[in-house]
């Protein structure tokens, strides 16, 4: 805030910057660790992507290992499982985006409407809770719930006339993955919307009330438009992560019977990299993943800029 008020409109030029630095050096100092973090942990490791084009061996290191050209990529595209893991990744991500993205917004709107403070706090706490449980434990719980004698598994099997754990049935994997994902993240993800909601001007509501607007009218005409920027930005970011299906959860939940619907690029990379120690190959697959993510991010941002008039940049 200090920076904003002190800065003049045309703050270009080194001189201006030096002046600013002198005045606010403590703020710059505070920013330094953040900058270092990004340089050290986000930018510096990027040169490691080099090993996607190499026959990597640890002794020779990143620079010393012999070049392999596009060999690693060719092997991935030629692999009989390529089509399957590629489409599974897209399917699972899109389904997650479709169902998991809007729900935190709805929850935030609902929480916002609650007038009883105590109840509000209770709902919030209860919905955050799963976020703090380790993923391994969450997956252990899911497995127990959907086993043939688990409380979910038992009822679903009775209703559907099937048997065995639900995780052995191809058509049940996606619902299990999505629903458990919602349970895990809905509370936590709604926080950012709640924060945006708290910034909405109360006077607008009062004015609307005088005009005779009901709850839903206010929600659609005031609340949603006020937080639409937040929603759009988060949506663009979510699209940018579309290929990043968390491999941890997949690996903890899947089994050979349902590879057909559950094996994704990241779990495939994991099996390749850690079980067969083929790092060059794994990096190639990971790099492919990142490039698609980047393309999607750029595209969404562009579309958003064009039609919604706003984007990340």
């Amino acid at each position, binding site marked *: 805030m200090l920076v904003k008020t002190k800065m003049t409109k045309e703050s270009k030029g080194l001189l201006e910057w030096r002046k600013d630095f002198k005045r606010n050096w403590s703020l710059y100092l505070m920013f330094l660790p953040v900058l270092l973090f990004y340089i050290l942990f986000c930018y510096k490791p990027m040169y490691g992507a080099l090993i996607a084009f190499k026959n990597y061996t640890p*002794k020779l290191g990143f620079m010393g290992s012999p070049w392999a050209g596009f060999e690693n990529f060719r092997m991935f595209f030629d692999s009989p*499982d390529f089509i399957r893991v590629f489409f599974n990744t897209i399917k699972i991500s899109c389904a997650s985006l479709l169902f998991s993205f809007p729900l935190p917004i709805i929850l935030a709107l609902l929480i916002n409407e609650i007038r009883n403070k105590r109840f509000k706090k209770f709902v919030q706490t209860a919905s955050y809770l799963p976020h703090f449980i380790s993923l391994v434990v969450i997956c252990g719980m899911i497995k127990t719930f959907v086993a043939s004698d688990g409380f979910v598994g038992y009822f679903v099997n009775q209703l559907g006339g099937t048997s065995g754990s639900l995780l052995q049935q191809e058509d049940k994997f996606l619902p299990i993955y999505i629903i458990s994902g919602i349970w895990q993240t809905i509370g936590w993800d709604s926080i950012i919307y709640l924060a945006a909601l708290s910034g909405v001007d109360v006077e607008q509501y009062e004015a609307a009330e005088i005009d005779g607007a009901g709850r839903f009218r206010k929600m659609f005409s005031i609340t949603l438009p006020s937080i639409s920027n937040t929603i759009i930005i988060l949506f663009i970011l979510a699209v940018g992560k579309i290929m990043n299906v968390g491999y941890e959860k997949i690996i903890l939940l899947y089994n050979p019977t349902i590879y057909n619907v559950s094996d994704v690029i990241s779990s495939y990379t994991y099996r390749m990299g850690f079980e067969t120690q083929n790092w060059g190959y794994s990096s190639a697959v990971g790099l492919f993943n990142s490039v698609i993510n980047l393309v999607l991010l750029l595209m969404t941002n562009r579309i958003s800029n064009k039609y919604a008039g706003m984007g990340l940049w």
Partner: protein
Amino acid sequence: MKLKNKKIMTLFALTVLIAAFGLTGCDTADEAANTDGERKLTYWTSLTSTASSLVTNLGDTPMMQKAQEMTGIDVEFIHPPQGQVNEKFNILIASGEYPDIIQYRWTSYPGGPQKAINEKIIVDLNTLKEDAPNFFSYLEKHDEVRKLSLTDSGALFSFPFIRGDESLLYSSGLIIRQDWLDELGLAMPETIEEWETVLTAFRDKKNCKAPLSMNIGHFGQVHAFAGAYGVGIGYYLDNGQVKYGMAEDGYKDFLTLLNKWYDEGLLDQDFSTLDSTTMDANILNGNAGVVQGSIGNGIGRYMNAAPDDTYQLAGAPYPVRNKGEVCEFGAMNTIIPLMNNAFAAISADSKNQQLAAQFLDFGYSQEGQMLYNFGIEGESYEMIDGYPTYTDLITNNPEGLSMSSALSMYTYAYDAGPTIQDKRYMEQYASLPEQKEAWATWSTSNMANHLLPYLYVKDDEVNELANLSNSVETYANEMTTKLIMGIEPLENYDSIVEELNNRGLGRILEMKQAAYERYLNK
């Protein structure tokens, strides 16, 4: 006011900075340079989870203190944190600065151990022959161990953990509820038909939810039931030929049988999601009648946790087609197990190579073997009639430690290390009569004719083999579970085998066969 604000801000910024840097504080250990005449080594090895619950450094165990005293060599042990062995190993290799001894599963080194020697990370021990007389004389007397230890180029990369007796190679198999058999008046099943009768009885009369509770990995470990049809699971040897079970005649019969058992509720309905924890729970709480396990971690652990006094387990023989036959397949370990602590190598740029070889060679000497298998005389064992007998400190620990925990302070035998495992360790470790009987039962199979040795694949074939294997095995696992559960009809078996071949099974077998032939010619 503003000035004060600024001061506070500055102070805060500094605090944040200090905290940020403090967290990344480096722990540069003093590099102990060996001055002349000092007998000191550095030794990188993982500490087993059993031992790490009692000590933070292997050097603190009574066994290692004694070893240092007996050899007159000071050893400083460096351990990676629990569960990060592979990551830390990679970082160690990339760092370019190596301790004198690096103990790791070198067979998993990308490109194989020969590559590590070529890259000048570790040394070919043949150059240190004079410093390791005990080890080399053992290799001369035991041709199979020699063949297993040598790479194709004839280099020797490590001091391995050697199972010193054939009986030590058999340690797991099928475990059955003996008390249920007795109660139902059934004999120990031998043939497939008898097994079916027993499992059916367990299901109907004992209300058992999953009479046979094993997943595909468990079947693979003991080759059970497939063996009755004359095939193994995974790769195995048949008359000198490397084969892959799923592509062989007989495997379809095995799948047909399991498919039938799955349909009838004899095989665990959660078969493909079953994990070992659930399997343990099943055998303990009466949900299962038959599981797979080992002498110590299976029977021993289950009997310790037995819910009541009547609870009784037994090792079951491998199922066969006709009564009286001996099963061709069963569970069997290789003489040198592929474990994290089974290969101690000496680094190529170590200045103390000879000293390191001497220290490692100690494990193969008479005194060294006694120490690493039984610990310290008068403390962890007593010689009774020439038989090294563990004392109460090990078998009935006054502080309530389990036998393996106590052994981890005095021996390598409970896990692995550069020494030769003694049969007399196992004789005492398998202390319950059930364990002893199971040991004998499980040793009865012709698996020795079928077990593949560890194969050294050629440098330029390593990546190809890894990729093809991954593709073939993923597909095979997927289809096996689907065929058993009836998701994929058994009629498709032939086209599945065809797909295995399309994915390169033939090429895999070709590479393995060539490696096996190189092994024979060593």
